[in-house]
């Protein structure tokens, strides 16, 4: 299952995109309470949002983005049926991508 949930809707020539990503977003400063070991940093560094293949928004994130990140943004244009793509890469090189259609 994809780690990304996307909703996109167009209204009056503006498309609103909302997405939720499942990711632990570990800062690397927390300790495991049982073992006392530091939990290594594991967080999304880059999020790319595209509209019909063209990049609309690039997000560069630090560790201060909450666990299971939420992101919403708007762009001009976009019509029902257009493709909205979201992809992310984290500091361990893991990545995921998903796309949806504007409704």
């Amino acid at each position: 299952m994809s780690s990304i949930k996307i909703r996109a809707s167009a209204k009056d020539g503006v498309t609103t995109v909302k997405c939720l990503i499942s990711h632990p977003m570990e800062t690397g400063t927390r300790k495991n309470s049982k073992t006392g070991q530091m939990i290594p940093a594991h967080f999304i560094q880059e999020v790319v949002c595209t509209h019909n293949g063209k990049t609309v928004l690039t997000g560069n994130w630090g560790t201060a983005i909450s666990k299971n990140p939420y992101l919403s943004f708007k762009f001009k244009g976009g019509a029902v049926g257009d493709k909205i793509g979201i992809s992310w890469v984290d500091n361990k090189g893991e990545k995921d991508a998903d796309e949806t259609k504007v409704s």
Partner: protein
Amino acid sequence: MTSMKRRIFLKGTLATGALGIAAGSGLLAPRAVLAAWAKEAFEAKDLNSALNSLLGSSTLSASDKIKIKAPDIAENGAVVPVSISTDLPGVESINIVVEKNPTPLAANFVLGPGALAEVSTRIKMGKSSSVLAVIKAGGKLYSTGKEVKVTIGGCGG
């Protein structure tokens, strides 16, 4: 109003400097860092060096054309919703900075063609701090801040 906020901001900057040294050791150690990702800026312990490294300047002009929406009191610092929007023309990037976080820079959004200057996300806050929206528009930096009180920190364990 705006000059008042700026004063708070300057004060906060000094405080962050001292905090940075205290929290210096063993913070971030990402192994595989991407070339595009501004490692230095995101790992910077104070606001000025984060902004200098990311945007090439730390000179902020207060602007009332930026709207930042965040709660006055956040019960849980691990999840603080923040929305930023602006009417400024020619916006290149929107940045979220939490002054008193161990690494103040939280996020940088680069707007592509057609993108409206309006972004919402959720951030972590270690303790009560001012959250700054820093907008790069026409090569200059503009900012507006909002004080958020945190009752439970989001960075500890």
